[in-house]
């Protein structure tokens, strides 16, 4: 009987790597927490850094999340060990997904928290070590002025299944007043679809 996701997902779900065990001493150089329980997923990521080589030497994580969140973060934790912080910073959900052997489209949004938490942990490390200039702010930009919809919300809508401008409007109410943001919204829509779903 085939499992619901790939065998790699199953393996990581059954034996998640680098989980922070209860009572385990793990002195972290950086720590990040993203998501919230109301949305159904939350992710915590801790990293240990070789301060001379600027590499990520070890990490631990914990999550309140589904099988895809557990498996994707487990894979991510293996991928980033030994990476330079600069490189680890650029790991995308798509890279994670590839290493998992693919997740169904509707589960992609469950797998984007791990890398977000990792970046939050790296940012935390930068701040604590006087490298504030390296922190890339992930600030949202308002696209639809009338309904106050940001690019982040457009990305979330894409992860939630929006593929057309009309579906995007249904999910975000964007462009339903003056309509001036339509072109920019469509450009972003296409960018985010390519970012998360192009094969």
């Amino acid at each position, binding site marked *: 009987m085939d499992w*619901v996701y790939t065998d790699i997902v199953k393996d990581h779900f059954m034996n998640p790597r680098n989980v922070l065990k*209860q009572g385990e001493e793990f002195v972290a150089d950086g720590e990040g927490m993203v998501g919230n329980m109301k*949305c*159904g997923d939350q992710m915590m990521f801790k990293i240990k850094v070789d301060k001379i080589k600027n590499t990520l030497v070890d990490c631990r994580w914990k999550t*309140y999340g589904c099988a895809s969140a557990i498996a994707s973060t487990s894979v991510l934790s293996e991928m980033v060990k030994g990476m330079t912080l600069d490189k680890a910073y650029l790991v995308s959900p798509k890279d994670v997904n590839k290493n998992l052997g693919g997740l169904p489209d509707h589960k992609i949004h469950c797998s984007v928290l791990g890398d977000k938490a990792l970046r939050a942990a790296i940012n935390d490390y930068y701040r604590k070590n006087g490298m504030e200039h390296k922190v890339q702010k992930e600030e949202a930009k308002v696209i639809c002025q009338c309904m106050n919809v940001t690019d982040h919300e457009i990305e979330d809508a894409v992860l939630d299944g929006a593929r057309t401008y009309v579906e995007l409007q249904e999910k975000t109410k964007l462009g339903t007043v003056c309509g001036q943001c339509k072109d920019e919204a469509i450009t972003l829509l296409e960018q985010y679809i390519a970012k998360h779903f192009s094969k």
Partner: protein
Amino acid sequence: MQRVYLDHNATTPLHPEVKKIIVNSLDVFGNPSSMHSLGREARKLVEEARGKVAHFIGADPEEVFFVGSGTEANNTVLSLVPCSPNKCHCPSARHEIITTAIEHPCILEASKCIRERGAEVKYLGVDKYGKVDSSQLEKFITNKTGLVSVMLANNEIGTIQDIKTLAKIAHKNDALFHTDAVQAVGKMPINVKDLDVDFLTISAHKLYGPKGVGALYVKKGVRFCPLIRGGHQEKGRRAGTENTLGIIAFGKAVELRKIEMTDETKRLLALKQILKQGLQKNIADITFNGHPEDCLPGTLNVSIDGVEGESVLLYLDLEGICVSTGSACASGSLDPSHVLLATGIPVERAHGSIRISLGRETTEKEIIYTIEKMAQVVKRVREISTAY
């Protein structure tokens, strides 16, 4: 690996006797509408099944017609209201429907669609146990209300509504009353005359019959308009050649329910009690959803703090245990169960909910195994949880 099926509200396995009758009826191929002997043979079997289904719910055979699913029956009833009465013979010019926030998606989606076609739809809320408040119906109902639709028992939390009282309010205001009894029929005694409903929906696969067949009860004298048009099958109320094999099996399934249901109810209530107490004893910080008494005998819905439902479901699946969850992640949407949210529980409790639904083959041994495995799985998930 041992397989423990505890998802009977999703669907049920065929009763062995039903399976037997399906196999034995495979050669019944005549079209029940045909006048020749093979057609008449099929017709006879369809009518026998109709008699059994009708008898089971206290209806006359001519008040029961067969459809393709519970969903179809529900869509048929909801399609009655926004119709224009002078175009076809629909119940009334009343363009307003009242239903509840905890209905099955087929009612909610159909109601959304008819609202877009111009009908007014109002949704009754529920209390923390999932019960509809009849006084809210009294407040909502107007002389424009054409139909009130309230499910008899909820599929997720098992809560049973006081249909008799609600139907009385509808009738006092000259509105028709429909109940989606898909989860209730076969799990508790149902009598349409006693409930005094105008429409009632049944599905065969929830009561150990096959998938793809259901029935709609339409009270004698209630004006009706078909959703599916074509031939004169089912007295013109539902076109399309009858699913003869499914209908024969459906008839057998209700006949068996009639024999087995009473004893089974007692047994399931006892098993549910063992399950409930076992979970309480072995897992800290859990809460039960649904009504403590007015609940389907085999349904138990539990929220487990600090865990997300899909991961619990899938870890249990690896142990051979089949359950379901109200978590968003298992639904393919971003929102958890609308039923649990309507009861006012915190969103995270809805994400952490597991529905366990027992059935005729469930044994005490399976329940003990489930308690043990659930405690292990929850411990495991909580260990990696940021929220516990």
